[in-house]
């Protein structure tokens, strides 16, 4: 199984979970059908023309019905965002296999899961809506609820216990580590350049190679650069996790982010940055580190609020080996690789596990707050949206590309605060993809259907799709796709003793052949050829055996023959071996050689020889050996 991501956009259909009772949210009117039927008004609330489910938010799981997940042997994880559904799969499907991921992926993935669980669990909600999921009722709801897919499979968040159990099934791996799976295939993670520990995977046998490229970046941010060279010579390249915003340039977005931030703060407003606790935030903090003094923001407090803020900042400093070269060399000095260490030391950046406690006493405005969750449905960000939403001095800047910012904002409307959309997605865009494919040259490309056509909103942009030859094969949810390659060879080891006994002969210049008769041993999907056992001597008790026991092991295969018999030389050979009355007759297709005395006839044609003789085994064998001298064995 390649990756185990969780679709969190489902949560956009739910009302936000406020930390403290929000009068505005709790007073939203219930929604009723056009005919006035209000039986759903406990479950569905209306806000500025949008309808939301008033319940614990639920997530859309990966496809679990298509196959029996207990038959999955291995899950390969490409980055920490792509493992968020792991507890659902490893804990409740009978899965008994192994999960492979890099150490930073697991550590940061744990932080993301911990944060998610914490956000959901700390605001217990009594009510759990399920009526609306009824297929007949869902049809009656307004969009986007009406169109939400697979709502019956949506699940509530897992628990920390399930997270721990899921993570305990992960085996840590390093870049370029070759991992043998059951002796049959080898998998290798490669740096994908997108996030700390993010990987692409090579899945290969000795003769076939499939690359799984998921969430890769060619930009220079903090992670180790993408390893492209190792992707070469792939039979199939599965390509996914491209940028969600192909039209936005991440560098430009960072610049816009900084200038909007500065503008708001200078005008006395606060800035809210909904974000994940790891990833782009490291790059944003680094930009701000270089920017704040020149922009005159030295006295503005930066707050980072997350239950895992401290862990995230600390962990980022200890994965030097997974960072880009510049950051690696800093560690050799030794200095922390990320400058946010200095921001913390100089008190410019402060981090808190939550709003409660120390933060409330330290809190000064105007300020900049980084906090989650980017869906704006749970986490401390909900509080700041409620707190700052009414003032046009304040700004919320969206940097995470996973959620539509308009949908994220919908339950907070009407809003006075400014909303800036600066999505920073460093993953591959279509220009980079075509460059990559040119460089790597896979025989076939396989990708999600969306990448094979322009985005629906920009259907004229033919440049916003994958363009390659042969055209990419596409797949969609719950579709089975046969990969276009045929396995033809497998590795086998010839034991040295057997190798010594082989007699190669040169058939054509540079090509030699040897016939091999050997015993095949297969263990753990590894094949070995050993010399055949020596023929056993006939034993004493032979007489008791029936005739059928004496039948030779006809499984001792005779080789195939090739070549042709030159008649003249053959006749000479016969004469040399004492056949004195050799006569040759020409036929349409060849010759007939007659041995009159022996009443024997040998038909010789281009591709066949037929010896017809009396039942004289000695004679037959003599003639056979003479014929074989002119032929090659295979």
């Amino acid at each position: 199984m390649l990756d185990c991501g969780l679709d969190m956009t489902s949560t956009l259909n739910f009302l936000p979970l406020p930390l403290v009772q929000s009068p505005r949210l709790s007073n939203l009117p219930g929604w009723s059908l056009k005919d006035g039927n209000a039986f759903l008004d406990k479950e569905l609330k209306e806000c500025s023309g949008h309808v939301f489910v008033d319940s614990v938010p639920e997530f859309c799981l990966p496809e679990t019905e298509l196959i029996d997940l207990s038959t999955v042997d291995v899950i390969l994880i490409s980055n920490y965002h792509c493992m968020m559904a792991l507890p659902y799969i490893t804990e409740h499907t009978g899965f008994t296999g192994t999960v492979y991921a890099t150490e930073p992926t697991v550590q940061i993935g744990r932080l993301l899961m911990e944060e998610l669980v914490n956000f959901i669990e700390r605001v217990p909600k009594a009510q759990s809506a399920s009526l609306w999921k009824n297929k007949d009722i869902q049809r009656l709801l307004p969009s986007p609820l009406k169109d939400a897919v697979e709502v019956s499979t949506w699940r509530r968040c897992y628990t920390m216990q399930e997270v721990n159990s899921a993570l305990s099934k992960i085996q840590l791996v390093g870049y370029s580590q070759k991992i043998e799976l059951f002796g049959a295939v080898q998998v290798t993670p490669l740096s994908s350049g997108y996030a700390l520990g993010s990987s692409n995977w090579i899945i290969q046998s000795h003769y076939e190679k499939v690359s799984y490229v998921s969430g890769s970046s060619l930009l220079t941010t903090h992670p180790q650069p993408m390893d492209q060279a190792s992707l070469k010579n792939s039979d199939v390249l599965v390509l996914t996790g491209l940028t969600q915003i192909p039209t936005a340039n991440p560098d430009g977005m960072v610049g816009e982010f900084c200038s909007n931030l500065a503008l708001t703060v200078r005008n006395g407003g606060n800035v809210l940055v909904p974000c994940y606790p790891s990833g782009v935030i490291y790059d944003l903090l680094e930009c701000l580190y270089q920017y704040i003094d020149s922009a005159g923001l030295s006295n503005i407090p930066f707050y980072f609020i997350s239950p895992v803020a401290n862990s995230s900042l600390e962990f980022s400093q200890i994965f030097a080996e997974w960072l880009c070269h510049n950051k690696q060399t800093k560690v050799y000095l030794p200095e922390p690789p990320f400058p946010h260490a200095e921001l913390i030391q100089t008190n410019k950046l402060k981090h808190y596990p939550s709003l409660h406690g120390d933060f409330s006493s330290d809190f000064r405005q105007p300020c900049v707050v980084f906090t989650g969750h980017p869906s704006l449905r749970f986490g401390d960000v909900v509080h700041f949206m409620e707190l700052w939403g009414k003032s046009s001095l304040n700004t919320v800047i969206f940097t995470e590309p996973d959620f539509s910012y308009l949908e994220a904002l919908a339950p907070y409307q009407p809003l006075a605060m400014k909303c800036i959309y600066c999505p920073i997605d460093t993953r591959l865009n279509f220009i980079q993809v075509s460059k990559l494919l040119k460089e790597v040259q896979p025989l076939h490309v396989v990708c999600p259907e969306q990448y094979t056509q322009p985005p629906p909103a920009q259907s004229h942009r033919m440049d916003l799709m994958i363009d390659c030859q042969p055209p990419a094969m596409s797949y969609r949810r719950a579709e089975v796709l046969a990969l276009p390659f045929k396995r033809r060879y497998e590795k086998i080891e010839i034991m040295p003793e057997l190798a010594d006994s082989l007699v190669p002969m040169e058939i054509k210049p540079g090509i030699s052949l040897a016939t091999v008769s050997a015993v095949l041993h297969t263990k753990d999907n590894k094949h070995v050829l050993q010399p055949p056992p020596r023929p056993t001597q006939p034993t004493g008790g032979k007489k008791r055996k029936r005739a059928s026991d004496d039948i030779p092991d006809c499984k001792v295969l005779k080789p195939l023959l090739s070549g042709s018999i030159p008649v003249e030389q053959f006749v000479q050979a016969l004469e040399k071996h004492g056949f004195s009355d050799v006569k040759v007759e020409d036929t349409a297709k060849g010759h007939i050689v007659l041995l009159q005395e022996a009443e024997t006839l040998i038909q010789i044609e281009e591709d066949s020889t037929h010896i017809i003789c009396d039942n004289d085994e000695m004679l037959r064998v003599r003639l056979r050996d003479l014929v074989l001298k002119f032929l090659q064995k295979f």
Partner: protein
Amino acid sequence: VCGVNGRFAWLVEGGAGQDVGRSCILVSIGGKNVMLDCGMHMGFNDDRRFPDFSYITRNGRLTDFLDCVIISHFHLDHCGALPYFSEMVGYDGPIYMTHPTQAICPILLEDYRKIAVDKKGEANFFTSQMIKDCMKKVVAVHLHQTVQVDDELEIKAYYAGHVLGAAMFQIKVGSESVVYTGDYNMTPDRHLGAAWIDKCRPNLLITESTYATTIRDSKRCRERDFLKKVHEAVERGGKVLIPVFALGRAQELCILLETFWERMNLKAPIYFSTGLTEKANHYYKLFITWTNQKIRKTFVQRNMFEFKHIKAFDRAFADNPGPMVVFATPGMLHAGQSLQIFRKWAGNEKNMVIMPGYCVQGTVGHKILSGQRKLEMEGRQVLEVKMQVEYMSFSAHADAKGIMQLVGQAEPENVLLVHGEAKKMEFLKQKIEQEFRVSCYMPANGETVTLPTSPSIPVGISLGLLKREMAQGLLPDAKKPRLLHGTLIMKDSNFRLVSSEQALKELGLAEHQLRFTCRVHLHDPRKEQETAMRVYSHLKSVLKEHCVQHLPDGSVTVESILIQAAAHSEDPGTKVLLVSWTYQDEELGSHLTSLLKKGLPQAAS
């Protein structure tokens, strides 16, 4: 040392043999030459300090001869000669080491250079610039990463414990491999984890054997002992000197004392000499993923390398009255601050020096440990040692038990012991040979050992052929070993095993069919059809395991062998059986003719 395929040899170059001086080993495997470690000898101040590379250089340049150099960890007896080797003798190829080793190694080299050149005024030594240039040739490796040095040679690092960043290396060419352990320890300590390697079954395991005979008492006992001694000395107002190397054991002992001071609420100051301390601890913080599980797990809450009780040392403190504990570098009392403090404190019997690690012959450390109490210092001065001298083995080497454990983990075909003392190694050698039934070698310095290997030959087998064979192997009658028959096509270095049919087809050759037809005369006056019928029932009853058929046209087949009955041209009482088969069915065909020659049973009607 020649690198013929199928053989490899190694040479233990001056030091790593039966002596704990310095490590530098040359391995030739599958035609590749790899140098393992490039250490210097702490006990010498002259040419003997560095390995003698003339063995290689008399035949050409180092760069041409060596495919790569591997450094196992940052201790100077494993990397101290590196700048001399690469910059002064001249080597431009790749040097592999782990990230922490790459970070710390140049600092220790510079430190060592300063002592040698600036303090002792030695000439002909490598310069700071040379250290920098040398480090530019380093390629950092991750644990378990398979590094492809070239198309054929690959190396892989395993965690070794011992010191931060220490690694064992697997060197592999084709199906042949060597594992070099460097220094390692098999039990986790207060700051590092235990060495681990998978069942990689190398042809050869080269292991250090510093503590070849020792089976050390439990770590806990040693720690208690250490704390007791330090505590007693401090209680009686004495000063305790612990000579250490800045990185490694020092951190472990600091953690130990820090927690003890905290628990016992002790007030006597603990100092750590040289500016390296803070820096050293910083490395541990940044490379925390290389420490043990417990430290890694808790580092966010409490970083074990931030010490409350341990402060930086100033040389003026040495004369302060009252008790104190000082960690000072270097560890063998052969130079620097530890030696200076030692000279100051040696005369007072209240004081104590604790040597927490091995000392090389020729060093002051070695002298006092071997009981010498009058030391000749520079300028004929004699120093009388009255202070208490204690030895505590804290250096993280595997003991005999650990070495046996590692051999058990890796399952090598042969073992080679280095970095130990001959007598002790002999004991271990016997033990390994007895327990694991593998050959064990212990070459002397400069000795070359050659070991033949017989690698199997990997070829590609066509899946059709393999599947056909494997399917038949699953049949219930497959009791006796089945023979696989095929043709090996060898083109350049591409070896493929295919079915004979496929081989013919690929080479564009036609099959030549060789067929035999034998006449068997049978006395039988009946009609041909009846003769055929009799032949059929006879064969059917005799050849139970074969498919015998009577075809509509009157002929009989046994598998693919065809039997037809014909009238004799002259004798109506005789019938001629024409038995016809191809060369491939020769055994059965010839068997049938002899069977038929014996005649048909009379009972048949």
